[in-house]
């Protein structure tokens, strides 16, 4: 009887895993929740709990996912399960944008892991977390240290990523302050500096048109129209300055995004 019950439980566990492998994360999450609920304490079923947190992460339920990962990372004894929970918590923090917290979780993972693979993953992700904060040199130096510590394929990966991180400091940059100032002096010029030609010319044209109409209404002593057009001209002018700043932000973000996509492409192709 006991063996039969165990067989059923084993089958249900594999059913949840099958749902997970098929990508049906919603159903898999329900099944993992049921398993944890019926089979005992969360900490005793850490592998199911990790999968449950991962399902929530994939379903974009990031708060629930982080809460479960953090609970496991805090309560489990040192070992691979705890390291995996810390890696999961770090990845959710990175998705939310808490990069400092994410880095702390990766350090915790590297410290508590037993197997070499998890130690390496923790160290690598911890070093790469600095990239999100645009700390290119720091990330590059840490990755080179990781490359020196790990021989073979792991070392080569870390070395290659260190090169990518180093190239981050040479990315083209446009100062939002200077672009804003340029747009203040000549409407649309901040956008033009960032290569946003159509936006810049449109801003210049709209400001010129609104300004000209305002001038004409003043010339004709039309008070009501002057007030309306004055407000419109000022709004266009202020929007144009904001547009210069925003163009610089867009420019810098696009440059970083290309680098991040390269890093992601390199990591997605990495299999030991």
């Amino acid at each position, binding site marked *: 009887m006991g063996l039969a019950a165990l067989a059923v439980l084993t089958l249900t566990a594999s059913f949840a895993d099958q749902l997970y492998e098929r990508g049906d994360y919603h159903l898999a999450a329900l099944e993992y929740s049921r398993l944890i609920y019926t089979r005992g304490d969360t900490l005793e079923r850490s592998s199911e709990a990790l999968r449950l947190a991962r399902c929530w992460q994939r379903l974009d339920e990031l708060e629930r996912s982080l809460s479960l990962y953090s609970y496991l990372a805090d309560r489990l004894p040192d070992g691979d399960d705890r390291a995996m929970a810390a890696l999961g918590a770090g990845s959710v923090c990175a998705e939310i944008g808490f990069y400092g917290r994410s880095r702390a979780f990766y350090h915790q993972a590297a410290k508590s892991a037993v197997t070499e693979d998890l130690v390496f993953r923790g160290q690598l992700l911890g070093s790469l977390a600095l990239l999100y904060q645009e700390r290119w040199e720091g990330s590059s130096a840490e990755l080179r240290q990781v490359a020196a510590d790990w021989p073979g394929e792991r070392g080569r990966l870390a070395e290659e990523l260190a090169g990518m991180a180093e190239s981050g400091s040479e990315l083209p940059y446009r100062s939002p302050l200077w672009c804003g100032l340029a747009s203040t002096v000549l409407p649309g010029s901040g956008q033009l500096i960032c290569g946003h030609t159509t936006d810049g010319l449109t801003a210049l044209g709209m400001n010129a048109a609104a300004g000209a109409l305002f001038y004409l209404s003043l010339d004709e002593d039309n008070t009501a129209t002057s007030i309306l057009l004055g407000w419109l001209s000022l709004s266009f002018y202020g929007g144009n300055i904001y547009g210069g700043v925003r163009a610089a932000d867009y420019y810098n*973000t696009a440059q*970083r995004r290309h680098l991040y996509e390269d890093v992601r492409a390199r990591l997605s192709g990495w299999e030991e």
Partner: protein
Amino acid sequence: MVRILILLFTLAAPPDGPEPGRVPGPTDALFYQYRLVVRELLGRKCSFIPSCSRYGQRAISRYGPVLGTMMALERWTRCHSSARRQDYYVPSGENSKLLDPIEDYGGFETWDSLLLPF
């Protein structure tokens, strides 16, 4: 008369307001009227998500009428046919529209979950 008109416009405002938890005001009613009538007449041509009217509505609701109007006009000057050819915007995947929220948006996917071993 003006008060009655404002009241009617306010009553016609969408119940959810510009953002969840915010009470709709007269400006929201104007944007709602625009979306209900003018946009339908002109056809939906905005290149962005959120659309220019929703962006303007949120900007005014969040930053007040002065800064909000500036931001809305700035977005309006960027909304042209060639915007879809610019690589600094991130495509949303929906009808080839471009993501351009009010908040800073990195537009990149993190790599961390690629290295999760479970």
